[in-house]
């Protein structure tokens, strides 16, 4: 039984990691070596292809990281600021209006953001935020609301109301109850939401591509990679290094934080 398990996992692991091996090894090889011996590492290896990708004129990789990191942090914070109070009110609310408010906020669960973004362009234009970072951040934050509110509401409902009542008797305001009693208890759910949002913002392509657009000159990692290799997918000595540069920081982060990322994803996900 144990041998079978180890065997299956080893095969699955090889299938999962082979593309990653190709990505790393071919990032150091010439086009000819990649074409002739893609799986081999016994050829001339050189960091010059990575260097070329790093200094390519089309898009600045380091700037792409900084822009993406800024978006991940910005959307993550905005989302928490907006959704935690909303989820608290809805979770503790007894009136019909609260249930309606919850339904409205969950409506976005069924909306494919890739096609929603087209009419959003008209909304952004009419409030003069099209092609701007604030416009992008507001829309991207809105996309995180349905799942975040859903998870937070379910989680808050598992926290006993008596805690709120005890704090109120002690004279705490509603905001203070939320910040000092409820939020500290929500840590698992917050971890889940933070991880989910970080991955969805970092991996997002359509929204930065359409809202910020190539004209704005603001590239995230994904739109930058697309701009760099979108038309040249067979120029492998550019494709592999660009892809490696795009995922290397995230991948290193993942390897070190894997336990926290996976437990963060799940700890708040299945309650309520």
């Amino acid at each position, binding site marked *: 039984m144990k041998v079978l*398990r180890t065997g299956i*996992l080893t095969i*699955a*692991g090889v*299938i*999962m990691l082979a*593309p*990653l091996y*190709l990505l790393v090894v*071919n990032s150091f090889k010439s086009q000819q070596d*990649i*074409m*002739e*011996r*893609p799986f081999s590492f016994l050829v001339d290896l050189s960091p010059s292809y990575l260097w070329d990708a790093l200094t390519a004129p089309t898009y600045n990789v380091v700037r792409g990281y900084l822009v993406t990191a800024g978006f991940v942090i910005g959307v993550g914070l905005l989302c928490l600021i*907006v959704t935690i*109070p*909303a989820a*608290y*009110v*809805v979770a503790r609310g007894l009136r019909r209006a609260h249930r309606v408010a919850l339904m*409205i*906020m969950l*409506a976005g*669960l*069924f*909306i*494919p953001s*890739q*096609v*929603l973004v*087209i*009419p*959003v362009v008209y*909304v952004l234009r009419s409030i003069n935020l099209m092609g701007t970072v604030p416009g992008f951040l507001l829309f991207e934050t*809105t996309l995180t*609301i349905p799942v975040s*509110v859903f998870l937070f509401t379910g989680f808050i409902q598992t926290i006993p109301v008596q805690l709120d009542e005890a704090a109120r008797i002690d004279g705490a305001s*509603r*905001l203070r109850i*939320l910040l000092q009693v409820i939020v500290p208890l929500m840590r698992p759910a917050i971890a889940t939401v933070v991880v989910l949002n970080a*991955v969805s913002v*970092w*991996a997002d*392509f*359509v929204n930065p591509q359409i809202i910020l657009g190539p004209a704005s000159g603001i590239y995230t990692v994904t739109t930058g*990679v697309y701009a760099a*290799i979108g038309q040249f*997918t067979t120029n*492998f000595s550019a494709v592999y290094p660009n*892809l490696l540069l*795009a995922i290397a920081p*995230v991948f290193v982060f*993942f390897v070190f934080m*894997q336990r926290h990322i*996976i437990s963060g*994803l*799940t700890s708040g*996900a*299945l309650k309520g």
Partner: protein
Amino acid sequence: MLAPALALVLVFILVPIGIAGYLSLTDWDGFTPRPEFIGWENYRRIFDDEPLVQAAVVTLVIAVVGTLFANALGLGLALLVDGPGRFKAVARGALFYPYIIGAVIIGFLWSAILGSNGAVNSVLHALGGTGIPFLAEPTWAIISLVLVIIWANFGVTMVLYLAGLQTLPGELMEAALIDGANAWQTFWRVKFALLAPVVTINLVLTMISLLRTYELVLALTAGGPAGTTQTITYYILTISFANGKLGYGAAQAVLLMVVILVVTVALTAMRRRAERDVAA
């Protein structure tokens, strides 16, 4: 405290849906100052539009096959990597990591591997073979697309199944074993039955996300060969909208939203029976 969230949802989700709904009843091309109202004409056109119907079929194949395999693999592998141990921890990471890489990069990476001059075909050529048209021949391209989608997606379902497995009370498994159940029976009758709610969540989430498949198609096949791997979202964005058929594209988008809503409700209702059996 509700106002900011509601305002954002109103401005960036509900109003845009309203705009899409209105545009879907017009013949707007994105330039003329006043869109002309043409009633249900756009919706009627959808069913006669052959490439679009084909995109719908491709999307359906991706959603159904992808959801089934991603969940079967996710659950099966979750059982194998559940529990302590360094080997299992490494395996969890190796199976899950595509989730954090993102679809655009996964698509480009696999196109470099499966393309006509890609890594696999280079080896096949070097061995004297003719190569396999993974992305160049329609049937192969769909198969490759679906396989890459499964490759990229089962890790997330696996992690959710792991979370579900950890909430199961251990006493029930022990009781089943004491009662003489074998490993196979404890899995199906106890673990799988108790996981019913997690199965529902996973099926719904995977289905919703695969019905929207766009970035992977863009980066892996760019809809080709000859448009045979276009999905609905791909068709809407790169064919309808890019060619100024905004009214028509809006009608397709509205229809897709309705389909996603119906599928979600139907799946949840179907699964409710399975979940009720657990409670009983």
